[in-house]
């Protein structure tokens, strides 16, 4: 089965920079969320996060192969098939995003947009208490997804014997190429 096993380039530089910048801006925003003293930093991190998501949406249409939305658009059939294979202990292998991860990515982008927009509204004092609630729910939703994402990275790295963290740093995966993209 292990034909064609050689290093392949999966994540392009803009996607990797986006990923780590988004992680950093979300972490900063989350850590400063309770403080009035650090409110400036919180707002700045929020603008950063919004800008990064705007870039990622654009990059999802014009970026490199595995970064494009069309490459990892999760259909219900794909998601169910993947989850079933996961439960059976033999998860299907995807070089790019697996369908469950893809669902988390779109949710994360959606929650990110909601958090940034409701944060902007709250900071500029329109939308009232409702926007404050939306902001908190969206941010907590993002944190839940981040935790699931981290667990998924660990489990998936272990099950497939590949270092996914390293791949997101270097862009390369030393893996078999079953579903080449773009």
């Amino acid at each position: 089965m292990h034909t064609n096993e050689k290093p392949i380039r999966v994540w392009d530089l803009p996607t990797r920079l986006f990923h780590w910048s988004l992680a950093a801006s979300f972490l900063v925003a989350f850590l400063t969320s309770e403080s009035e003293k650090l409110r400036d930093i919180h707002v700045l991190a929020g603008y950063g996060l919004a800008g990064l998501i705007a870039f990622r949406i654009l990059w999802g249409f014009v970026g490199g192969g595995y970064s494009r939305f069309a490459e990892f658009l999760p259909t219900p059939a794909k998601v169910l098939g993947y989850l079933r294979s996961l439960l059976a202990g033999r998860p299907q292998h995807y070089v790019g995003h697996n369908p469950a991860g893809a669902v988390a990515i779109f949710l994360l982008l959606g929650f990110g947009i909601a958090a940034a927009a409701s944060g902007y509204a709250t900071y500029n004092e329109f939308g009232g208490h409702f926007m404050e609630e939306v902001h908190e729910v969206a941010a907590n939703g993002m944190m839940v997804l981040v935790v699931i994402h981290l667990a998924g990275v660990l489990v998936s790295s272990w099950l497939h014997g590949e270092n996914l963290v390293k791949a997101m740093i270097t862009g390369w995966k030393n893996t078999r190429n079953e579903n080449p993209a773009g």
Partner: protein
Amino acid sequence: MSGIDTLETAMRPVLILAALSIAAGDVALAETPRDFLIRFEKEAGTAASAERGARFFNSKQGGEWSCASCHTDKPTQAGRHAKTDKPIGALAPAANAERFTDATKVDKWFRRNCNDTLNRLCTAQEKADVTAWLLSLK
């Protein structure tokens, strides 16, 4: 058995839950500033002192800011955020009927603002004192 009866039977738990949650919501909405004073005093185990609350509110407690840094030393007036300069509605219930009516908000803002001014949570005694002082303002 008619369809409507079946539907009613099936819906009963839902209706009861809905009624209960509306009732619970009403209780939460019905909270008055005095309810918070009573609650904090009960948690502290002693009576509140409005005078002590005023001193606490208007002086720094180890941090860079006092409560008054944002809420001013006359909390019947609007305040101003010490960092962003944005207006903050008056804190004293006499001037702002929305204050001290929602436990979620009261707990949330005591937690956040105590951490900003004291670098720790407030004790029940401190909250009781401040609430007593704010309630005494006309």
